[in-house]
């Protein structure tokens, strides 16, 4: 079903406006129905775009300009002070080093978590499709159902387990946590993908005497690039946007960007600097936004993957 979502833009009307009349006589563009459709869509688009606009213009204003009290107004001149302050010197609780430490913490958390979680999920999916063993389907079902358990239910025991293992409040700790909670959706993704590959390929390799890992690394992995990209998008945005696990498991030295951003805005002392707040907010949203705009339809496929049942 995710396939249909990615195909949705295919017969694009814009591209077919070439020279010369072709096809049936076009209907008049301004029918009342069309006007209603476009008005509604534009109205909703404004609702969706308004916060982005406000966020950007506010971040370029000076504080006196903001106190003037017009949230719509275009900035008098583009002022990057707020951006610099948000990045280098805004106060996140006790320290005043801006968002940059948070950014690097998020990078340090996101990259290994993404790699580890995707690798483990790919192996899971492969084992579930090609090397089924007694109970493998039961484990998979519990895994999928487990993804609906509220995180809060498992939070405290996980704190105890990670503390026992000595990884509570460290980078390895938060990586393990992201791997665990990314596992259901990613395993589902890879399982469905491997199941869609022709089984003859696997059988042929098996007859030739290749084992579990050899088939995985030499046949399955090279063929699964598209699904890797989808998983990558899903994980990078998901882990980057995480707040709860970061605040509980990362430890004070490794607090991710979302946590630091929330500290800048919500536990600030003195008069709030809305331009700095908004610059910091844009900065935090920038990574997922870039991924979203670059990946386009693959992102849609990634988010729709969650809705496709196995």
């Amino acid at each position, binding site marked *: 079903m*995710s396939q249909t979502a990615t195909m*949705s833009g295919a017969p694009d009307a814009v591209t077919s406006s070439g020279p010369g009349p072709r096809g049936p006589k076009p209907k008049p563009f301004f029918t009342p129905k069309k006007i209603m*459709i476009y008005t509604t869509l534009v109205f909703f688009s404004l609702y*969706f775009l308004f916060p982005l606009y406000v966020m950007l213009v*506010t971040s370029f204003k000076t504080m006196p300009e903001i106190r003037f009290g017009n949230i719509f107004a275009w900035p008098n001149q583009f002022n990057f002070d707020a951006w610099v302050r948000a990045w280098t010197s805004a106060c996140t609780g006790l320290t005043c080093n801006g968002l940059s430490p948070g950014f690097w913490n998020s990078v340090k958390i996101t990259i290994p978590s993404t790699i580890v979680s995707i690798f483990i999920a790919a192996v899971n999916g492969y084992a579930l499709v090609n090397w089924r063993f007694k109970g493998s389907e039961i484990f998979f079902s519990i895994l999928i159902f487990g993804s609906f358990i*509220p*995180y809060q239910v498992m939070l405290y025991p*996980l704190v105890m387990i990670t503390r026992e293992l000595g990884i509570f409040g460290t980078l390895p700790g938060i990586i393990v946590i992201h791997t665990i909670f990314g596992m259901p959706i990613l395993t589902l993704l890879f399982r469905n993908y491997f199941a869609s590959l022709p089984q003859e390929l696997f059988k042929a390799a098996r007859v030739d005497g290749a084992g579990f890992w050899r088939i995985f690394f030499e046949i399955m992995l090279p063929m699964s690039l598209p699904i890797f990209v989808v998983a990558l998008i899903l994980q990078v945005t998901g882990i980057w*946007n995480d707040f709860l696990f970061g605040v509980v498991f990362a430890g004070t030295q490794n607090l991710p960007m979302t946590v630091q951003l929330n500290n800048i805005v919500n536990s600030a002392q003195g008069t709030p600097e809305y331009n700095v707040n908004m610059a910091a907010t844009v900065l935090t949203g920038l990574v997922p936004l870039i991924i979203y705009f670059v990946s386009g339809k693959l992102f*849609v496929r990634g988010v729709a993957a969650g809705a496709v049942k196995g």
Partner: protein
Amino acid sequence: MADVATQPAQGTETSTRPGFIQRLFLHNITAKVAALPMIATVLVIFVGCTAWTIYYSFTSSRLLPRNDFVGFDQYVRLFGTNRWNISITNLLMYGSMSLVLTLTLGFLLAVLMDQKIRFESAFRTIMLYPFALSFIVTGLVWQWIMNPTLGLQGTMRNLGWTGFTFDWISNPRMVLFALLIAGLWQGVGFCMVLMLAGLRGVDEEIWKAAKVDGIPTWRTYISIVLPMMRGVLITSVVIIGSGIVRLYDLVVALTNGGPGISSEVPAKYVYDYMFGGGNIGQGLAASTMMLLSVMIIMIPWAYLEFGGKGRR
């Protein structure tokens, strides 16, 4: 080929065969070792931790978990706490409004997008981009927009509309609607994408048949297409519903439970009692109630999805 476990459904492993125990552990040994992280996650985290939480919610644990059974004491205290009752009322109110509006708007927008319109991918990009942003970013942007003095309300008043009121964020009776506006902003695009995929999955022939029979378009959508999209609808309800129960980040960023405790939610109660209040038992009991509410959504779904399969 008997060793190639590609078709276990045909029963390559039979429990009556001698050496069953060895086969259980040694057959496909590499695959089992490779799947150990998954097996461990399922057994230790999803089953083990959940069971631990449920068990210890019946103890008097405070600063540290304590293994003394006190029955339903924690739950009695939980439902005697004003903050918890406000939390669940809020979740019910917000949840039902959010679920209905997300589905309705998502479906409506998907239908509009399905009318062979121009700039479809531009509209989709605009509607879905909030979904890429975190709840923290969402909450903070809307907190700024809803700022009573300098946000939308102040702007409108400065522009001359002095009676304009949009103080939902600081008004205990309206604060849930503030959450709703931000939540819908983030989630409607996602629902639209799911619904659109569902609409595109409906057979073109249905539309032709409906046209031949002279059924009005809206009627076709309500009576024919919507029932055909049952799968997508149920999946959407489950995903959106379990997301609502988890609602936490958005509240922390937008209102932090305020004004007062008027926008508290269960997930925040759990966190605050577990890690802030040093009252683990309360946190565990509250999280068990969260689990229960997800089960109420999940069990009918599981029944429909898997229980009903044999009959179809």
